[in-house]
């Protein structure tokens, strides 16, 4: 299967010239400049890992969203748009947005005010060291696997530009990413993330405008999608979800519970690569606003991902078919078709920068968790601060090297988004169950945290294997990940309750500030002047985002 992939990738060749390379080179000069400047500002391990907790909400908010606008969004969501049509919108409007708002309003105060470095550290304080180690271990593995996806996507673009073989593109891409994260740690990663977001939007908007012009505007696109392989179903989100007669083969229970609740809440609320962005905010309010500020752009991101996917399926009849280009190539194909040199350079720069940012986010998440939650917490915690900064840099190198290996795994999947969702169902869904039960049920015991998490992860993995082996029939790979997530959540919850009833709970004094309804009075109020304004209220802004998401569904019922 990987062979077919490589052949298809070689068909696509972007017609870049000197002008495009100048635009690309300018970007990386600026990126390296930020790396050097940030390096001078990095003094303590807190600076390196959490940007000194000094950033305002609008920077952390954009960084939060940009950390996710890597390969997952741009190629993956366009691939899904082409493969499943308008149902891809569920990822944004019932998936991401409500989960981001929930994270900001309900969960962020616990993360931020407990002054933890990471999600696994939170697990240690709420449960025990074993839970922390388990969570840190699965998280580290997940980040390396996801880094491989980003690296593969990056290499796919380099391959299309330069015609290099995939393995060479992967290695060169890895070297560039490594150079830029080791320079300045999280500060430079965050700044680059914000920049790449604007550049990629500047590069994708022209693709959307020209694409819509070609197919005759929105109405023309609608007409042509109906006549394409997707058919009428490609234009609807909720129609026929009582059964499974829709492009996703998913019913509304799978969508609402699997995707909307478990998978998305799990991803957004416990994925440390994301949460870390909010932890670098300057106070509790800024931390709570971080995911909510990010939810607004997230609402409209489908314009530059799902619409190009639909245009691609209309224009390229052989997309996703045997011998044709893979769904992953929808966006690069459109760029090649429409963009003249100049804008093409901006779009290519945006894509390359986006995958680097995505990979940098995975690697910085990995090195924080490896250094703080595995090494410092469980192997040796007696070294001076600088020692851990250095270990963080070594972990970065190891993480990038491991990512090269996992990039070849990603290369075996025709739709990288499906692969990614399967990974989320293994790692994030059970974590979310443990986290949410632990937060709202203070009796839940330390070992319930550990065993719930372990059995949930194993069951999600088992359901995927059984789907692959043909024992379970979920219709599509994506639907399999919705169900895997649901199964992981339920098993985790049941095991947690059973183990809790058989063991003794932690005393309340150890749970202050970590569970709902037991606040920690010793933590000072860190509100700044102006935080009481309505436009800085997490609840008002969060409610606004959810209402907009619901309203956006109306044309696509």
């Amino acid at each position, binding site marked *: 299967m990987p062979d077919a992939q490589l052949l298809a990738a070689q068909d696509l060749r972007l017609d870049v010239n000197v002008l495009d390379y100048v635009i690309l080179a300018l970007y990386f000069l*600026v990126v390296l400049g930020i790396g050097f400047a940030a390096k001078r*500002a990095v003094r303590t391990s807190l600076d390196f890992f959490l940007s*000194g907790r000094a950033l305002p909400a609008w920077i952390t908010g954009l960084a939060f969203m940009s950390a996710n606008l890597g390969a997952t969004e741009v190629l993956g969501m366009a691939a899904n748009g082409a493969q499943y049509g308008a149902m891809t919108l569920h990822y944004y409007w019932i998936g991401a947005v409500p989960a981001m708002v929930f994270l900001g309003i309900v969960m962020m105060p616990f993360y931020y005010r407990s002054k933890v470095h990471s999600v696994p550290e939170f697990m240690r304080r709420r449960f025990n060291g074993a839970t922390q180690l388990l969570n840190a271990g699965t998280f580290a593995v997940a980040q390396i696997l996801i880094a491989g996806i980003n690296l593969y996507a990056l290499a796919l673009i380099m391959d299309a530009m330069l015609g290099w073989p995939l393995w060479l593109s992967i290695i060169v891409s890895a070297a560039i990413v490594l150079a830029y994260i080791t320079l300045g740690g999280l500060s430079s990663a965050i700044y680059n993330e914000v920049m790449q977001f604007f550049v990629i939007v*500047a590069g994708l908007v022209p693709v959307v405008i020209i694409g819509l012009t070609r197919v005759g505007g929105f109405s023309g696109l609608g007409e042509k999608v109906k006549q394409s392989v997707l058919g009428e179903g490609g234009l609807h989100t909720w129609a026929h979800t009582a059964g499974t007669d829709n492009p996703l083969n998913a019913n509304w229970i799978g969508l609402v519970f699997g995707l909307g609740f478990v998978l998305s809440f799990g991803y957004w609320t416990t994925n440390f690569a994301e949460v870390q962005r909010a932890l670098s905010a*300057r106070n509790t309010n800024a931390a709570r606003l971080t995911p909510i500020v990010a939810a607004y752009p997230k609402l409209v991101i489908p314009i530059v991902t799902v619409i190009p996917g639909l245009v691609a399926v209309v224009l390229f009849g052989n997309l996703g078919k045997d011998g044709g280009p893979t769904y992953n190539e929808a966006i690069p194909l459109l760029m090649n078709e*429409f963009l003249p*040199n100049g804008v093409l350079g901006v779009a290519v720069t945006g894509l390359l920068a986006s995958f680097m940012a995505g990979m940098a986010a995975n690697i910085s998440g990995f090195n924080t968790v490896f250094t703080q939650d595995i090494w410092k917490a469980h192997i040796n915690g007696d070294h001076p601060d600088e020692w851990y900064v250095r270990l963080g840099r070594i972990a970065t190198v190891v993480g990038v090297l491991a990512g090269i290996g996992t990039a070849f795994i990603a290369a075996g999947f025709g739709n990288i988004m499906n692969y990614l969702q399967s990974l989320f169902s293994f790692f994030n869904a059970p974590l979310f169950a443990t986290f949410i039960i632990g937060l709202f049920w203070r009796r839940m015991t330390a070992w319930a945290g550990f065993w719930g998490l372990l059995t949930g992860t194993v069951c999600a993995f088992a359901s995927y294997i059984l789907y692959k082996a043909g024992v379970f029939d979920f219709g599509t790979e994506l639907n399999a990940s919705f169900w895997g997530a649901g199964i992981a959540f339920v098993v985790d919850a049941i095991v947690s309750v059973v183990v809790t009833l058989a063991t003794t709970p932690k005393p309340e004094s150890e749970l202050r500030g970590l569970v709902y309804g037991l606040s920690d009075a010793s933590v000072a109020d860190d509100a*700044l*002047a102006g935080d009481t304004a309505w436009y800085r209220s997490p609840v008002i802004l969060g409610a606004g985002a959810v209402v907009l998401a619901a309203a956006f569904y109306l044309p696509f019922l």
Partner: protein
Amino acid sequence: MAAPQRLFDIRRVIGGLFLVYGLILTVTGLFDSAQEIQKAEGIRINLWTGIAMLVVGGAFLLWERLRPSDGPAPSDEEE
């Protein structure tokens, strides 16, 4: 503790980058050949994208100029 945003404001970096990109694209757009314009469905996409990037870049620089730092500096309690 030197907070990163005191060293270099991201708005200035994005604004500057967009101005340079906008300038390059606008100039390229002015001299685009008929063939290039036809590739983009008759839209002078380099020119329009260039102008849009100039506007966005200018807006970032203006924002940075009007509100140099976002609120008071954080306390250095971690030190």
